[in-house]
Every structure is written in structure tokens, then in C-alpha cells.
């Protein structure tokens, strides 16, 4: 506990060092609280222009419109617990909003209204909750009182943290593995704020951080997060990244400062974009996806070579294309397929990653780094090795005070100050409630952010159907479905794939709640089934059909 009190002066020291060139701190959280029709009050002069943009989607009902979404992450360091019980030091991203959502393994992305606090009233007006009404009686361990708690305000642990002192209190040592989960819908606008609270265990580094939206189409260099060709945010500063969401798919995100170091040390996260087809109202026929056209230098107008959703053709050139009608109970899809071929019941974002404990030790102890000799020895799925991968989140677990319980609700790690914080909130336990919930299809959003090698994932008992690759539906420019069945898939660092596990076959009818079936998703590269010296674990998880 005593170490905890060292934090604040230490953090102040970090802030002070930057204040030599800037005034105190420059945290600036931006989430324009403007409705999709442009009404409401803008938080800053530019927000309204963006919000006024038409969000109605051609070919879709007016109800299918995008929203403004917001999220905040902090750049920091922290500790994670490996499946062999060892703690490992990380550079990482922690949550700066959506703390309860993230600790339960859910995306931390929220609408502007939720991010700003439901009762938000613009600054200066009377009767409202202050901007960013984040308010919690206790720190993440559920035990240590948060001195900034205001008992006159409702408890809200999902709001964006605007207050600089709270950002430091909650952000320092809060690194998660993987980084906070981001999920948006096509046609949304995302205001993603990165606040750099420093890495308190490495006060010598003064590291900047960035966000690289990996795979984002038609990216601008400014929001691409590469420090060499853009800007990087220093300690005690914030940068708000702005993205539209033009194409559904499984992407991911990471810091792009000194990538071999910051990625290996843990600054990697998951990100996906849900298709607008999900928002099709019940019993409505989906508008057929179509390819945009592009103008060549010759002046010719041709099908866009990068078309992401070519329509499924009809039987002949003159018959109408295949269309999908949303049933009375709306379904979910990986892509705007137009024919329901990427439908799923339940989804699991799974990030393949590796940690080299030697490199992490060096990263904590100020030693020269060995890049060429980097060798992962912890093989992880979403930050955990087996059997931690199947340690489920207890939904709604609360402590005696009614706060989400960081000990049983998620996987936590005690940091150097003795305070336990959620460190690896995402289990990879794939549960398909076939008999109890009518579920037959699980979508695995696989991404690989290993910085050392390619990895293979295979299944036993349930075949994989690969429907997407690198955040794009597998479909040729003529509209033919190129999805394929396989028992293994090999993905390199910087790649992603969408895989559907289908248990609709009657062979799985015997899998019930009373007699569940357990299958495995694991790396057939058998040396990846280790937790360092412990030789059964690593890159493996279970598929539970019941």
C-alpha cells in the first residue's frame, strides 16, 4: 500500500519534465456530443461539421445510419500474469474509458452520449454531471478508496476520463494485454483519444506513443500513427485520432513507435468493424452490395479493383443477383455478403501473440535489447496461455461494495505498487450454446501480432470455414464465394482472418448442457504449446458445444 502513495509524486515528476516545454499537462479528450442529425452542442469548433455529414446509407432504410463513437486509451506500462504463474512486465495500453465494459471482455467503444456520461450537460450550464462523469469509489482492485470519488454523483465507471488527475490515478500501470478492445459499425465516426501517462517503471525513456489502425483503407498519413511520417504524442499529452468506418472486417491496432520494442512489449490490440447488414431491420431484404467504380489514367471507368463486397451473381447475366432477407429475428454477419454466407451467432476476437521473457526482462531492467535474437517463449491467445485461455469472465461479478470485482471478474495482476488491476480481460473460451440457445455458428476474428514468426492454428472436432482474410470477404471480382474449409490456418504477424466454426451438423446434436462436448483450437506447431518452461499450455483453447 505504501508504494501506491509514491505514484502520485512520481507521476507529477513525469508531467513536470514535459512541462519544461509545455504548460503543465496537455491532456485533451475529444468526443463531440452531437446527434447524427447535427443537433446538440459541439464540444469544439470542428466537431459539428463532421457530425453534419449525411450518414444515411444509400439503399438502406433511414434507420440504418451511423453514429459518433468514442473511446479513450492511455499509453502506459504494467504487468501481466502468464499461465505458469510468472508476472511479466509490459509496455501497453490501458483503458481511459469503458472500464467496466473492458474488464468484462467487451469492447470499450461507446456512443458519444455514453462516453460523456448519460446526464451530460455542456460546461457552464447548471444541473448536469460534469464532462466525463467517470466516478468510482474504489480503484481497480475494489479495495483502495479513490480519493477523487464524488459521492454526490452517480457511480459511472464507463465514462471517458477527462480529469487529468484521474487519468494519472487510473492510467499509470494500467496496461492490458491485449490493449482495450475497439469495435465500431460501418458508417460510424470514431473519435479515439490516446493519452500518454508515461511508463513509471522506465522513467528514463520519455517514450511517445501512437495508434496505428492496421489495415485501415485509404488511410491518411496523419492518423496512420507512424511517428516517422506523422506526429507522436509525448507524456502528459493527448491526441484524438479520427476514423470513419468504410469497410467491415477484422483489423487490429498497435503503437508504431520503435515497433520491434513496443509491439513485443505488448502495445497491441484488437479492432473490428461490423457490417451495416447487421442493422438491416427484421423481415427486410438487404440491399445488394455493389462495387464502386474507378477512373483509370486512360479515362476508362472500370470496376474498383479494391472492391470489398462484389455482389453474388444471379444464375445468368440477366437474372437478378442473389439477395438476403433478414428474418424476423435479426442475424449478425461478418461482412455485407448479400446472401447470408457470413452469418454467425456468437463472435470471439482472438489475437495471436508471443512474449519473449528475456526481452521483457531486459525491457524492465534498462539493458541493451537483442532484436535479432528475439525468441518468444510464451505463446498467447488474447494475452493468455492455456489453461488461462478458458478461465471465463464471471459476468457481473461484483465485490461487497457492488463494484465490478477485478479479482473474479477478469484476470488481474498486482503491479509494483501492490495494487491489482485487470491485466488480461479476454478469455478465448469458445462457447456455442447449440441445444440451449440455438447457436450453430461461431465467428473467430483471428489476428496475429507476433513480431517474430508466423503461427498456425488448427481445430480438432470442428472444421474451420475461412470467410475473410486481411479484413476482406473472400470473394472474387465476379462475386463468386471463395470461402474454404480447412482444419488449420497459418497467419503471419500483421495478418488477420475470419473463421466460422459451424456445428449445425446433426453430429453435434448429442452435445447438450447435460453432456457438453469439448473440442480444441490449438497450434499444431507443437513448440507453441508451452508457457515458457511449462510444456503443456501456450497457444491453445477449448471449444465448448452444449
Amino acid at each position, binding site marked *: 500500500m505504501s508504494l501506491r502513495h509514491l505514484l502520485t509524486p512520481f507521476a507529477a515528476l513525469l508531467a513536470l519534465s514535459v512541462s519544461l516545454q509545455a504548460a503543465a499537462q496537455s491532456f485533451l479528450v475529444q468526443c463531440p456530443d452531437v446527434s447524427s442529425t447535427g443537433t446538440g452542442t459541439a464540444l469544439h469548433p470542428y466537431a459539428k461539421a463532421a457530425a453534419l455529414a449525411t450518414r444515411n446509407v444509400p439503399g438502406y432504410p433511414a434507420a440504418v445510419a451511423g453514429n459518433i463513437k468514442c473511446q479513450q486509451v492511455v499509453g502506459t506500462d504494467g504487468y501481466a500474469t502468464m499461465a505458469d504463474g510468472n508476472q511479466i512486465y509490459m509496455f501497453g495500453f490501458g483503458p481511459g474509458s469503458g472500464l467496466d465494459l473492458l474488464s468484462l471482455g467487451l469492447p470499450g467503444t461507446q456512443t458519444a452520449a455514453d462516453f460523456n456520461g448519460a446526464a451530460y450537460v455542456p460546461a457552464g450550464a447548471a444541473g448536469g454531471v460534469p464532462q466525463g462523469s467517470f466516478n468510482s469509489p474504489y480503484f481497480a482492485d475494489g479495495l483502495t478508496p479513490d480519493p477523487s470519488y464524488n459521492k454526490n454523483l452517480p457511480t459511472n465507471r464507463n465514462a471517458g476520463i477527462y480529469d487529468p488527475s484521474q487519468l494519472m490515478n487510473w492510467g499509470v500501470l494500467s496496461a492490458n494485454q491485449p490493449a482495450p478492445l475497439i469495435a465500431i459499425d460501418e458508417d460510424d465516426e470514431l473519435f479515439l483519444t490516446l493519452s500518454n501517462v508515461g511508463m513509471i517503471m522506465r522513467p528514463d525513456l520519455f517514450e511517445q506513443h501512437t495508434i496505428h489502425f492496421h489495415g485501415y483503407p485509404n488511410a491518411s498519413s496523419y492518423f496512420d500513427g507512424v511517428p516517422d511520417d506523422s506526429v507522436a504524442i509525448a507524456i502528459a499529452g493527448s491526441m484524438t485520432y*479520427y476514423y470513419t468506418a468504410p469497410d467491415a472486417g477484422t483489423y487490429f491496432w498497435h503503437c508504431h513507435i520503435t515497433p520491434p520494442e513496443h509491439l513485443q512489449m505488448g502495445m497491441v490490440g484488437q479492432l473490428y468493424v461490423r457490417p451495416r447488414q447487421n442493422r438491416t431491420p427484421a423481415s427486410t431484404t438487404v440491399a445488394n452490395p455493389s462495387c464502386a467504380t474507378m477512373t483509370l489514367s486512360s479515362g476508362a471507368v472500370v470496376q474498383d479493383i479494391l472492391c470489398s463486397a462484389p455482389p453474388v*451473381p444471379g444464375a445468368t447475366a440477366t437474372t437478378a443477383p442473389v439477395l438476403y432477407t433478414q428474418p424476423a429475428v435479426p442475424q449478425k454477419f461478418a461482412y455485407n455478403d448479400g446472401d447470408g454466407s457470413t452469418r454467425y451467432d456468437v463472435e470471439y476476437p482472438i489475437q495471436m501473440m508471443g512474449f519473449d521473457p528475456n526481452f521483457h526482462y531486459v525491457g524492465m531492467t534498462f539493458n541493451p535489447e537483442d532484436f*535479432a*535474437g528475439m525468441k518468444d517463449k510464451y505463446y498467447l491467445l488474447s494475452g493468455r496461455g492455456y489453461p488461462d485461455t478458458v478461465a471465463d469472465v464471471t459476468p457481473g461479478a461484483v465485490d461487497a461494495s457492488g463494484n465490478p470485482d477485478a479479482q473474479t471478474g477478469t484476470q488481474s495482476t498486482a503491479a509494483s505498487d501492490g495494487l491489482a488491476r485487470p491485466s488480461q480481460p479476454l478469455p478465448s473460451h469458445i462457447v456455442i450454446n447449440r441445444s440451449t440457445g440455438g447457436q450453430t455458428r461461431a465467428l473467430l476474428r483471428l489476428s496475429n501480432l507476433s513480431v517474430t514468426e508466423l503461427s498456425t492454428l488448427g481445430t480438432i472436432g470442428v472444421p474451420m470455414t475461412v470467410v475473410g482474410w486481411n479484413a476482406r470477404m473472400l470473394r472474387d471480382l465476379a462475386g463468386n464465394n471463395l470461402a474454404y474449409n480447412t482444419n488449420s490456418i497459418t497467419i503471419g504477424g500483421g495478418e488477420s482472418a475470419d473463421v466460422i466454426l459451424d456445428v449445425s451438423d446433426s453430429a453435434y446434436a448429442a452435445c447438450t448442457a447435460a453432456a457438453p462436448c469439448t473440442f480444441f483450437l490449438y497450434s499444431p506447431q507443437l513448440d507453441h504449446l508451452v508457457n515458457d518452461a511449462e510444456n503443456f499450455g501456450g497457444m491453445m483453447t477449448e471449444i465448448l458445444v452444449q
Partner: protein
Amino acid sequence: MTTVFQAIQSRHRAVRSLAMAVPLLLGSVGAWSAVPGITGNATGSTAAAPTFALVAAPSRLTQPDGSALYSWGYGCASGSSPTFVPFAPGASNGANLGCPTMQVPGPTLIVKEGATVTVTLTNNLPSVAGNTSILFPGFAVTASGGVAGTNTNEAVPCAAGSATCAAVTYTFTATKPGTYAYYSGTQSDLQIDMGLFGAVIVLPAATQSNPNAAGTPVPCKTGPYSLAANAYDHPQTCYDREYLFQWHEMSGPLHSAIESQVSACAAKNGVGCTPASGVVEPYRPNYFMINGRSMPDDMDGSYLAQYPNQPYNGNPHMHPGEVVLMRTIGQGRIQHPFHFHGNHARTIARDGNLLLAATDNAPVSGTLAGGVIQPMNRVAGPLYYTIATTSGQTLDTLFTWTAKGLNWDVYGHAQNVNAAGAGFPQGPTATGNAAVDPFPCYADITGHYTVDSTPPAVFPAFDASGNLTAGSPNYGEYCADHNKPIPVTPPDPAVVATGQWYSGTPYLGIQAATPNPLAPTFAKQVSTGGYAYMWHSHDEREITTNNVFPGGMMMMLIIDPPTAFIDETQ
């Protein structure tokens, strides 16, 4: 204290490395590349029957850490005087530097579809290296001369000082267009790591056409530095610009061990030597290269005198809206996930095999090699943002970028006048509304400002010196985003670090360059104010050179403003 000091030293090392790179780059701002190569010997070659006289020889590769890595490579035999395309090495580079007797990668052999290709290989490697050979995967090769080897006929080392060496000859027909690898088929585990590999490019026989907005077929344009108008005999393979990226790695200790064996043998006058061998497993490479160079050398010009055995660079440039053909080859033993920032790319072919849809209700009209026009099924290759660069495999992809859909004007048009862009209509310019918008964006049928707009944009044209003679400064802009301000308040400049490829504003192009918050002395690598994107291996440990970051497999794509001339010869 020692450990802290070491860490600081380590960091300074990285900084020094970058600082060292800057003068080199500054000396050649505007270094571009295209796909330079040779089409055959000046004498004895025809387009239908090109001949190449190659030699395998030892020399050294320059690395940005200062080392000169002993290596083996293919090169042009002395006196063979090959013809260069798409441009000749500058005269200042000295005689024969364009194709030295040893280079890594080996000379890029550029031939026409249907040509009968003859390659002769002479072995000038040290005697301990033993025999060597060339494999041409994807072609039916006839080998003659030399001695029989496991995979093909091999050339034996020339005796020291011998004027005449028995060469081995390989002949094949370039049956189909595409990108192909060639590499040693002798003791390949060692010889390919040592540098014995290269590329063959087969150009298609027929130029393709596509319909314009009125339905009239118009032929694909051949870019000023393109080898052809289209990559294959298919209308969906037209491109404006092309780059070849060969990805491979080397083990410094292995090369040193081989050099020691060569020296020891020479000291014994070649008597009693044992064949060269090294520890090839476990494999611990520490140099990671694109086209034979580590970053930042790869972003320097091609055919430069300071890299006498590494003539090719990796330095892609483009204008918004152009289609870029990326020819990618995995030449190493391990895979290097090639992640290109900026956009996806469409795969059109693998190992020179065009990937087409199995069935198509609306095929496009294409021209076969023989000139026959017929319906062709559309392209079927996947979209990638990362290419796995599988060992020995070639992948041809098409990349493009227009900033479409960002919901803000990347050219910063209105922001040049006032920060909020007040007073300027957002979105596509209404016809005849130029008076209220100094940089109008009239949308064509695809939503962009092009020659198909009404009134049309002017396609940028340049004179022989590269000066702009005519052209719309925002040619290719996506008009729906025109004049929209950037939707966030940028961070306080005092709490950001800026990179050397950053132009100083969030905007693309010279019209956004004033006012520029960067100090006049700030070393800006992109003099045109273009956007830079990192193209690199996503096994991030490979963007290092002998353990120093930054380095290795990293380069920058520069998207230059439409009216900036891209001179690929410099």
C-alpha cells in the same frame, strides 16, 4: 548504474544510426526506382530471342551499420554490355556499374512473352564454393554445358587466372507474362543466403483496353517508367507505375565464416581445401533487406556509386488515384510479412499465374496475346494488407489510393484560407462554381475529379526537365470530402514529436505547406509535401540492421501531390 548507461548507449546507437542516414538521403532527395533491369546483351539479342551472359562472383555488400558483408551474387559478364530498361544508369556512375559482375539481387531479366531466352552462366566464385547453377521455376528449361548436378547442369569454378571458363547455358521460352524468381540450384541452403538469386519479368504481348464512361474502349496508358501498360493479357491488370520488391535475409556470422574459409584456402594456394560450409541451422539472420539493401539505403537512388554491388533500391512513389503494380518475391529462407500501410492491394497473379474467376456472368473484354479480342472472366485474387512473402513465391498485386471516404479534405483546401474552412461549400463543386472555390472538385461518375469530370480536370503533364506544363493540382481528389475540415482539434505542437517524413501539416501537398509550423531547418524528407507510408516487415524484429533500430526491411511509400513530377531515374 552500468545498466542504465548501457541502455542510454543503446538508444544513442539507434539515434546515431538514423542521423547517419540523413546526409545520405539528403544528398539524393527524390530517389525513385520503378523496375530497373536488362533486356539482353547489346549484341546477339533480339526481342524474340534475348541472350544474357551472367557470371557468379564474390564481392561485398554495403550495410548502413558500416559493415561490408562478404557475399556471392550474379552479375553481367565483362563485356556483355546489356541493354537497360526503363532507363539507363547515369553516366556519372562509371562504366559497367549499371550491371557489375556481382550484384545482389542478380540482374532483373526483362523479356517479352513468347521470347526464347538464353542465359549463360560462368562461375567466378572461389574454388571452395564449388559448383553453382541457376533454376528458373515456372519455365521448362533446357540446360547444356557444364556438369550434371542434382537439379540442373552446373558451372564449375574457373581456375584462378584462367581466361577461358566453361559456361553452362540455360534456354527456355517465356510462355506467359508475370514475375518470376531465379536462384541457385546448387547447395541452395548456403548459396541463396550468400546472395545468389534474382528475378525474371515477362511482359505481356497485348496492350489492353477498357471502356470509358461512354462505352468506347480506350487503351491503357503506359506510365513514363512502366515496362508495359498492363501486367498480363487481361484488361483488369492495367497499371500506371510498378515496383519490384525482393525480400531476403542474411546471416552475418555465416558470411564471415565462409569468408574465413575462402581466405584460408587462398593462403594454401587452393591446395587441400575443403568445400565451403557453414552453420545454416539454427538460422540466425541479422541483416534483413529489400532488393539487397537495408533501410535507409533502400530509399536511396538506384545504380548509385556508393552501392557498387546493390544497384536496385526500394522506394515507391505514386500520385493519388494511380494504380501501382507491386511485384513481390520471397527470396529468403524465412517469410517476412510485408505490411503496406495506406490501403489494401488486389492480388492478380501468383508465380506468374493469372488468378481469374471460375465463372462470370459479366466478363470483361480483353485481348489475347495473338490479338484476338474475347470475353475474359474477372480477377479472383484476394485482397491483402499484408503479403506473407513465402519463400520462392512471387505475388503480383495492384495498389491504389485516393483518400476516398475519410470525411475530411486531405488537401486542406479550405484550411489554406482559414482554419475552420468557413465560407467554402463542402462536397463536390457545382458546375460553374469555380468563382467561389479556387480549387474546384467536379465529381466524375466515380466521384473523383478526373478527365471524365464536367468540366474535365487537366491530367498533369511535365516537360523534359520535369517541370509542370499543365495539370489540376487536385487531380484525382474524392469530391465528397472536398473542403471538409479535419474533424478534431490537433494536439498542442509542444507535446508532439514529428518525424522526418512529416510535412508539417496534416494535409497532402504543396498547397498545404504554408503556414508550416516546422522550423525551416527541420530536415523534411518529402520535399513535395506528400504523404509518407511505412512499407515494412511486420515481423518487427526485422526492421533492424544487425540489432540496431531503425533499419532492415523498411521503406516509405510517398504519395506525391498530383502536380509533383516523379523522376524514377534519380
